């Protein structure tokens, strides 16, 4: 098992009602699998929202396998400026 921290922002925070989740996952869990889990937890509220993935505060364009202690964020469309 691995433990990962999920940082929640904007619509993800709004949908899940929390800033941060700490989850225990099976070893070998990928970012795609975790995104699917997060979308299920949001009960449809994230269905129309595209999410980019950041692992340890860096965008990762492709699916990667998560490691114990990783910090993950599913980044909804950004709105700086």
């Amino acid at each position, binding site marked *: 098992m691995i433990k990962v921290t999920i940082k929640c922002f904007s619509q993800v925070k709004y949908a899940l009602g929390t800033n941060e989740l700490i989850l225990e996952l099976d070893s070998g869990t990928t970012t795609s699998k975790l995104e699917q889990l997060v979308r299920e937890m949001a009960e449809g509220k994230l269905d129309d929202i595209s999410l980019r993935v950041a692992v340890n505060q*860096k965008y990762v364009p492709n699916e990667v396998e998560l490691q114990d202690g990783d910090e993950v964020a599913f980044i909804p469309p950004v*709105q700086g400026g």
Partner: protein
Amino acid sequence: MVTVEIVNGPISFFSNDDSREQNGAELIFNGRVRATEHGKNITALEYEQYEGMAEVELTQLAKATCEKFPIHDLYCKHRIGRVVVGETSLHVVIWSKHRKEGLDAMTWFITELKKRIPIWKWAILEDGSKIPSECSHE
């Protein structure tokens, strides 16, 4: 050279600098909070950042802009937290030899900022409630 700051509270603008003897063009952009956001009347925006990542990404973007365009310096301040209507949330200054590269660099920098810097807006409505601003690609 780049200077990037993410600031919680009012932005102090970068001060005027007459010592730049080879910088014919100084271009300043101030992004302000408007009274309407996606058709809704608002009293303020509340900017949320991914702390750490936002500043790292913004600094990388500023450096990339200085490499992509022949400009001398780029300074940028982005405000976080509550910003009332009329106040400045984004302040960017670019110095260059001529105006063209400054205008091109400003256009690219802000466009990319709006694509990749993990900062989000929450709309504060007239009744005091707070909701995520809808996704926008202006």
